[in-house]
């Protein structure tokens, strides 16, 4: 079957709602040719607007009006007409004599959605015609749990796509990986294409991406291209998969107004770690002091710790009574969090006649985060128009603008960390209004309390995005069209930061202003040719050319030393100390030629060949262009005679693809020999700029290549009641873009090189079933599961790569090693705690505790090489943050007008490396600890993993080890939604088209390992949050913004 290219924009229009109205009269003209008219209705006999009608013989086409009516000219009565509409099975029937209007009743294609049109690179295809692996998410699914960004909304929706939302902050960034990692030094993020315009990657502040600034409410469908056959058309940008976003457009018919609103409140989510209360802490501190004598007898005898006696510390009359009992017992989680109402409003208008359609929408989101002062505010507007200027020319365009402002309180790890570590015996403020900080307590680690920090710090990120595209579609002859898309995306960000004088003591206040702008444009021009030769053969051809360019610049300035906090970042000139400025500019360009041929034999055997030649500015002089081919075949077994009439199997397709895609996401100028002018020298006590060593040239630099093969099965049973899609894939990345280490004797660190390889192999499956279906009650289930295994095959040199992932305190946490999964966790094996019986054996060890003898009560490690020293030789791979399997299970029940959706997200086999164990369990007294320290070693409790409590200054032990690794498997109550859609009769009385009200709870519960504290979906925050670090730090817990449980009330009104 040919794609219904002429209808694609209509078929993909804003809303699938059927409009009820009576059948209109039928116009009929007797001429030479026959004019066939009629009405297309749905299963409930309601007219369907926007149905495509096409004559198989003449290729003439028409589309139904708002009242479901159509009119088409045919040559004779036997001519076959097909009727197609999304979500319905296509029908073909003879045109007839035209003497009486036809009534075509469409039958929903349930489950299998065989006739769905999906968006693919540079075109659309019917689902049944696909030869590649493509996953789809529809607007209705996105609406089930409204989210501030598309990535968050994608969680669990598509097999093979791993989405981890790692921060509970509104707009908190999500990690998206399609079929695993493909790169070490380049990006692992997929390519996003919005309405045919490729988004730029990477330069945005705080590891955000251009896609984060698209309003998810404007999206009508999302397609995820996974295999090489689908992605190769994106050549050097396709290796990490491609996410195609289609935004809403108007459609022919009655003008419509939609208003969606939701209100929500965040509350503290499941599994937040338990910390010591005031009484417990003071008891732990007393014990810690007492045990100093045991752990450093010499220092104790020399009087080194006399000043550490807690009794001396508990003298502050604001905090303690005369006997040292605390006045306060503060719950810092409560103090740091808020439960404010968030709201989201979306108002949309759309409509059009047969010639012109339009849509415009405005949105306002105001999210108040769980943690005080954190917020996300967004104003967005969007306009689209499509006009059939001539029979052969269609033009249209989209313009959207977003203004988003956020306070990123998790820009620093200190906020989340302080919630755990603030002393419970401190109030938020003393009676004189001064903040009470840990640092007020003698000899504690010098922390500020979380409320103090929240109130006296700002890290505001303001982003303005203008995304626009214009297209023209010229039909040269029937079947041959040329589409030209001019796209532009301008992202301006301003990042204003300040921390107050009482927080930033050494600088006496700090303020910074940074602006950055990325201006991207692209021109794409492509020809599409559709031809059905006869019953047996049809082809679709595509040939195109593309130019893209991105210009980036940033300017930053910062200053310290303010006499007042009044100015914040609004008057940098008022700062007196150490002003610093910086700026940077770069540009990159891509020029491409691409083509694709689809050939269908008897509608049973489908072949696709794709190729793209890409030229990138970022690559070496000797390797500017590369070619990325792919091929795929599919066999629609169910179309064979032996299955055609099967009552059981309604659809069976086997498909296989193979191809090469690339990854070019490295910074520009990587191939050039450069000097750096960022060497600051101090000469004569002033800053002098030095110019020197920076980068070695590599004129041969080129893209990473990922070769991917895929075998898939699509199975539909019992008329689509059960549908299964299963894929096996193998991806191998070669010519990996590595910062290959060079001998440091050269003065250089690395050279960017194409060397090294890694593989990913996996299975992904999606199962959709309709378990029960009657007029009053339906029950549908969808389940997906993905498995992926990653392995490094070769690196530039045998040297392991450290310094990735993070945060790397104490010693390296992650390793990239040949033969292992990328970014594996690295550390010692904790056997437990030395027992009294082992005193002599413990003492044999070279001290790993401040030079003091290792004692019963100290942590006991596995001494791999038996040398009685615990050092690098005893480290090994102790875990990995990638899951063995992950996915989602969603059940949808409908009883009359009531519907209930229960969506579970699960993940099995990923490890969590809880770095907070170091600060909150391995050491005491410096700050508050986790309640787990109550299970520390004592002579009476020797069978534990937690060392005996002692003041750290008498010597403690902390190392990245197996005790920090926890099973991160989980089942999350992702969303529970109860909705009520008012009956048509009620709605019409209110002069509405649609009215729906719902309540939902997101992140309602979490089933996870008992040992795990906190949320298993996590990456480190703070200075460790940049993307480069984060690639391999999934599952590393270092004080992320706690993920809330969100309760929501929403309303959808259509009129």
């Amino acid at each position, binding site marked *: 079957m040919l794609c219904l290219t002429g209808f694609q924009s209509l078929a993909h229009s804003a809303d699938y709602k059927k409009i009820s109205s009576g059948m209109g009269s039928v116009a009929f003209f007797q001429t030479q040719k026959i004019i066939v008219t009629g009405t297309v209705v749905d299963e409930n006999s309601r007219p369907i607007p926007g149905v495509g009608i096409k004559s198989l013989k003449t290729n003439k086409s028409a589309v139904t009006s708002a009242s479901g009516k159509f009119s088409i000219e045919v040559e004779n009565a036997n001519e076959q007409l097909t009727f197609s509409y999304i979500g319905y099975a296509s029908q073909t029937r003879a045109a007839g004599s035209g003497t009486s209007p036809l009534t075509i009743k469409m039958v929903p294609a349930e489950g299998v959605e065989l006739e769905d049109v999906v968006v693919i690179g540079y075109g659309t295809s019917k689902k049944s015609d696909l030869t590649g692996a493509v996953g789809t998410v529809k607007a209705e699914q996105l609406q089930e749990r409204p989210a501030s960004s598309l990535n968050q909304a994608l969680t669990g929706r598509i097999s093979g796509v791993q989405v981890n939302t790692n921060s509970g902050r509104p707009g908190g960034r999500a990690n998206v990986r399609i079929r695993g990692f493909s790169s070490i030094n380049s990006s692992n993020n997929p390519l996003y294409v919005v309405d045919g315009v490729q988004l730029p990657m990477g330069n945005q502040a705080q590891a955000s991406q251009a896609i984060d600034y698209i309003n998810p409410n404007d999206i009508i469908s999302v397609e995820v291209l996974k295999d090489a056959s689908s992605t190769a058309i994106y050549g050097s940008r396709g290796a990490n998969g491609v996410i195609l976003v289609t935004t809403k457009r108007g459609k022919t018919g009655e003008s419509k107004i939609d208003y969606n609103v939701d209100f929500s409140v965040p509350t503290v989510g499941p599994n937040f770690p338990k910390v010591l209360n005031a009484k417990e802490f003071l008891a732990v501190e007393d014990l810690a002091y007492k045990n100093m004598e045991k752990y450093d007898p010499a220092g104790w005898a020399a009087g*080194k710790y006399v*000043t*550490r006696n807690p009794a001396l510390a508990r003298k502050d009359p604001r905090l303690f009574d005369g006997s040292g009992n605390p006045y306060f017992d503060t719950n810092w989680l409560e103090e740091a969090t808020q439960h404010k109402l968030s709201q989201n409003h979306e108002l949309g208008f759309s409509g059009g006649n047969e010639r012109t359609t339009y849509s415009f929408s405005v949105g306002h989101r105001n999210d108040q985060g769980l943690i005080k002062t954190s917020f996300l505010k967004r104003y967005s507007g969007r306009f689209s128009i499509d006009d059939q200027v001539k029979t052969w020319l269609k033009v249209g365009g989209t313009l959207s603008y977003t203004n988003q402002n956020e306070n990123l309180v998790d820009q620093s790890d200190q906020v989340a960390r302080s919630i755990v570590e603030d002393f419970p015996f401190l109030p938020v403020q003393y009676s004189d209004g001064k903040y009470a900080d840990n*640092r007020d307590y*003698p*000899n504690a680690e*010098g922390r500020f309390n979380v409320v103090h920090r929240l109130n006296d710090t700002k890290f505001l990120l303001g982003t303005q995005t203008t995304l626009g595209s214009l297209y023209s579609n010229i039909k*040269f002859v029937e079947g041959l069209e*040329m589409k030209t898309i001019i796209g532009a995306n301008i992202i301006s960000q301003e990042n204003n930061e300040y921390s107050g004088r009482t927080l930033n*003591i050494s600088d006496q206040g700090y303020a910074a202003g940074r602006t950055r702008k990325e201006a991207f444009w692209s*021109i794409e*021009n492509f*020809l599409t040719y559709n031809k059905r030769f006869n019953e047996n053969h049809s082809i679709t051809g595509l*040939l195109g050319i593309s*130019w893209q360019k991105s210009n980036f610049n940033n300017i930053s300035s910062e200053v310290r030393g303010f006499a007042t906090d009044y100015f914040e970042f609004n008057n940098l000139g008022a700062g007196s100390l*150490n002003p610093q400025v910086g*700026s940077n500019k*770069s540009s990159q*360009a891509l*020029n491409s*030629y691409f083509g694709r041929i689809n050939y269908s034999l008897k509608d049973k055997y489908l072949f696709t060949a794709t190729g793209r030649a890409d030229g990138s*500015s970022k690559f070496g002089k000797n390797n500017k262009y590369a070619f990325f081919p792919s091929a795929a075949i599919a066999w629609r077994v169910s179309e064979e005679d032996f299955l055609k009439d099967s009552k059981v199997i309604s659809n069976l397709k086997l498909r296989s693809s193979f191809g090469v895609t690339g990854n070019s996401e490295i910074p520009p*100028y990587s191939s050039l020999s*450069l000097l*750096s*002018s960022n060497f*600051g*020298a*101090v000469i*004569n*006590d002033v*800053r*002098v700029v*030095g110019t*020197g*060593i920076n980068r070695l040239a590599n004129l041969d630099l080129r893209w990473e290549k990922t070769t991917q093969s895929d075998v898939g099965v699509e199975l539909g049973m019992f008329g689509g009641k059960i549908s299964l899609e299963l894929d096996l894939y193998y991806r191998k990345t070669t010519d990996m873009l590595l910062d290959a280490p060079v*001998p*440091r*004797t*050269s*003065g*250089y660190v690395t050279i960017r090189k194409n060397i090294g390889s890694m593989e990913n192999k996996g299975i992904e499956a999606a199962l959709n079933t309709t378990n029960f279906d009657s007029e009053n009650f339906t029950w549908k289930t969808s389940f997906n599961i993905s498995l992926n295994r990653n392995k490094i095959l070769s690196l530039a040199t045998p*040297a392991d790569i450290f310094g990735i992932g993070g945060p790397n*305190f*104490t*010693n390296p946490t992650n390793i990239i090693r040949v033969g292992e999964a990328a970014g594996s966790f690295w550390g010692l094996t904790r056997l437990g705690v030395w027992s009294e019986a082992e005193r002599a054996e413990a003492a044999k060890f*070279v*001290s790993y*505790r*401040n*030079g003091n*003898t290792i004692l019963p009560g100290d942590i006991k490690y596995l001494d791999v090489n038996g*040398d009685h020293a*615990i*050092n*690098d*030789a005893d480290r090994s791979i102790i875990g990995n943050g990638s899951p063995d399997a992950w996915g989602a299970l969603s059940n949808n029940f409908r009883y009359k007008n009531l519907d209930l959706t229960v969506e579970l997200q699960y993940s099995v086999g990923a490890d969590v490396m809880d770095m907070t164990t170091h600060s909150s369990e391995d050491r005491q007294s410096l700050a508050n600890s986790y309640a787990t320290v109550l299970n520390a070693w004592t002579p009476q409790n020797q069978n534990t993993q937690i060392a005996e409590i002692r003041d*750290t*200054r008498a*010597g403690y032990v902390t190392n990245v080890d197996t005790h920090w690794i926890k099973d991160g498997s989980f089942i999350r109550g992702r969303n529970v939604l109860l909705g009520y859609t008012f009956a048509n009769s009620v709605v019409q009385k209110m002069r509405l088209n649609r009215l729906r009200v719902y309540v939902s709870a997101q992140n309602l519960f979490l089933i996870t390992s008992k040992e795990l504290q906190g949320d298993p979906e996590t990456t480190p925050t703070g200075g460790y949050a940049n993307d480069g670090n984060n690639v391999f730090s999934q599952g590393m817990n270092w004080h992320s913004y706690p993920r809330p449980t969100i309760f929501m009330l929403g309303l959808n009104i259509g009129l």
Partner: protein
Amino acid sequence: MKINFILMKINITKYISRIFLVGVLLFGSGCSKFLDEQDPSNLTPDNFYKIPEHAEAAIAAVYSSSRFMGDGAGIFSSNWQLLEAVTGTSTTETAQNSDLNNLYGLVYDSNTGHVINYWNGIYRVIAQANLVLDNVPGITPMDEAQKKRILGEARFLRAWAYFYAVRLWGDVPLITKSQTLESEDFFPKRASVESVYALIVEDLIAAENAGLPWMNKNGRVTLAAAKSELAIVYLTMAGQPLNKGASHYKLAADKANEVITYAKANPASIDLFPTYAEVHKETLKNEKEHIFMLQYNSVVAGNPMDNMYPNFKPVTFNGASGTGSTVPTLEFYNSYETGDLRAKDREGYFYSSYFTNGNGALFQLGAPYIFKHFNTIANGSSGVAGTRNNNLNVPVIRYAEILLVYAEAQNEVGGPTSDAYDAFKRIRDRAQLVTPAMGTYNQSTFREAVWRERWHELCYEQITWFDMVRLRKVFNETTKGFDNFVGHVNQSSDQPLQSKHLLFPIPRPEMQNNPNLTPQNPGYQ
């Protein structure tokens, strides 16, 4: 182009032809330069090294890189702790950094971060210097004196870096030209200790003859620095492992004496500071006692010695914020002679009480900490709030060391002369110690007396370790005598030094990245 050809073929309809033409005009031309790139924010070697200002910027990059020893080495640690943790004179109050723990426990290996960072930092200085030495000579026109000075500074800094390398690892690659991928020595072999010292001496003599001023408060390399460094190099060559003996003791003594002679004639230029407070006073940078320093200023980088602050005790304006990862062992502190001013609280090189938050009430710390790098101006002093900007330099060569170099070398040449005795006595005089009459010393007792003075005067300046290695002797805090290196038990860890510890392991990543870099030093993997 392919596309045009196909378009041509299907271009059959009139009205389309116009649009098509527009298309061709838009897309079919002018793209030859589309993919060229030039970085607007960074220079390339082709557009640099043209004018004298470029030479100044190039040498500034060498100075900038010389601060590597102050860079971080993981949490709560700095690179310089490599040279302190192994001496046994200091210990830690935190176990946070496992690399540092391994250094204290003498169980470090070729993956230990500090070892790797020193290697990388040293060769970065060398590479920056080589860029200067390769490119600055070609800059014309340029004032010859300026050119000579810059080249002299570069040679000094290269020698200074190689001197670290050869003492830490023995045979090391000898790179004297700036590198590209095509360079013959891009994957270098190890060069002999002898040949490395030959380059060091050659470079320092070149620096000596580069027309540098005797002293210069701007912090650049001076003539005094070149002569002093040469004296220290000769003294080291006289000892282990080269064992050049008398000839080099003589060279060392003579070179040190050149500095002493100049100092005696120009006490306003070079001299000991009368008080220890002045040794670490940020307003007295690069003058008198400070012959060569690493330059710090908070506009670029603040003083990197803050790991010497006590563990979370409020001795500075910043409240309870220190790490205590380098603190004196009680044994070493107690080994000072009674009455030694250097051991006196807040007057010498130690403190055991300080003002709360830098300028508040005096409080007891419970133990001695290192005062030598403590900036009272930045941190605060009695009743005076700190400036909060720690601009204190890190001393590399102090006149005190040169006096002791002279005393030691001259004693080896011909026993304790009166000049040698005077040099030695000046150090003790400042400490308000009574020095036995010259006649009470013989060559052997004077030798140990000078060594002991080196331990007590030069501690925590990253010098002691190299004394241990060149002498193969270690100060015994209990006996006050000297143990052989091998077998001496470090008080900080109760671990004995082994012969393998005379050299550090070559970083494992470097050996993996350079297959020519074999073998590993004995005793390491």
